[in-house]
């Protein structure tokens, strides 16, 4: 029964279609805007629907040197060897932050919530009169703070500030490594 209904339905659709004998068939690749296959678009197509890594543009399109950008890619993945991660693996390490000696060290603390880091950001951003963007005590997460800053500024300034933040974070991290 269902087959006959489908057949009649199909008949209905096809009766409205007229072939044009002198026109060739055209095949369109939906994943590229020009309708032509490319390996790049096909490769990207396999990742369709995956979750976007929000700060990717801020990290990879700035003017900071590649090694700093690489560090900046590791930091949001929480893959830098900070004390909290070392201790979790039972490796010898000082649990307190080397800058303030008050709180436990982790990547968000090192880059944002530490008083030393806040002061560092204040002086760094003050040179360009952007000290209003300095992390406040309510900012707990480096990425959230960065996103907020990114949304506050526009155009070329945004590019500059993002580069500055990457370089600043890189400096903080290097300084921390020298202290430990």
């Amino acid at each position, binding site marked *: 029964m269902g087959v006959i209904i489908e057949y009649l339905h199909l008949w209905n659709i096809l009766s409205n279609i007229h072939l044009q004998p002198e026109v060739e068939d055209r*095949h369109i690749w939906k994943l590229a805007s020009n309708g032509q*296959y490319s*390996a*790049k678009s096909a490769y990207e197509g396999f990742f369709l629907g995956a979750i976007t890594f929000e700060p990717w543009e801020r990290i990879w399109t700035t003017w900071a040197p*590649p*090694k700093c950008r*690489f560090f900046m890619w590791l930091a949001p*993945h929480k893959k830098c060897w900070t004390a909290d991660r070392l201790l979790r693996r039972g490796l010898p390490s000082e649990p307190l932050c080397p800058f303030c000696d008050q709180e436990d060290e982790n990547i968000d603390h090192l880059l944002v919530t530490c008083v030393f880091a806040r002061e560092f950001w204040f002086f760094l951003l003050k040179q360009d009169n952007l000290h209003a963007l300095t992390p406040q005590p309510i900012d707990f997460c480096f990425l959230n703070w960065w996103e907020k800053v990114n949304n506050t500024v526009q155009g070329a300034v945004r590019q500059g500030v993002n580069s500055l933040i990457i370089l600043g974070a890189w400096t903080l991290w290097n300084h921390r490594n020298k202290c430990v």
Partner: protein
Amino acid sequence: MTLDILNLFGEASGLRTNLQKCSVLPIRCEESELEVISSMLPCNLSDFPCRYLGLPLSLKKLTKAQVQPIIDRIADQLPGWKADLMTRAGRRVQVQVVLTGMLIYLVMASDLPAWAIKEIDKIRRGFLWRGRKDVKGGHCLVAWVNVTRPFELGGLGISDLKTLGWALRMRWLWLQKTEPNRPWAHRPIHVPDQVRAFFAMATISEVGDGAHTLFWTDRWLEGQCIADLAPRLFAFIPKRRIKRRTV
């Protein structure tokens, strides 16, 4: 006869054939025919598998011994590089551009077995994190699946070999569809089912005379195919007809 043609071609184009570097590959030949061939063509007789256009050519699935040289060639790159003087960011570029780039030609043509991809990934991973071949889990700060994603998705933009091979080999399906005059176009193309399904989803057809659009499975009715519109009817159609019938 063959020799005459080759000589003639050599005279006309200046591209002379060096018979010492040639080999004869008989396909379904009798013993007596082989003798005739070897008397006419003074080349050495060899057999499949062989290399053709730089690729391993085999009648059967590639064996481990045939794939191993490819992996070794990649591993041989590393000792010459001053890995300790490079930052990880520099090594990332090296991995993507050189180690992965070397493979593009190969994976475009043939399907690398899963174990080979694993071996190659081991080399790529080791070089990225440590600058050498052997590496332990502790040296790798980020899981390899997360590294081999595009930048937008939180990766390092290093290609995932399996997906890369799929995307590249989809090209043959596309050419088969859009350029049916190619001599191989009517022959079956061996790709995994996922690739075929993905290709079907990504391609829609605009019918003109309908000669190169498959009636049942191509998506030609406003981006839909009849197999989806009438699945119960489609189940009754013989397989041969599904593959042949055009609009």
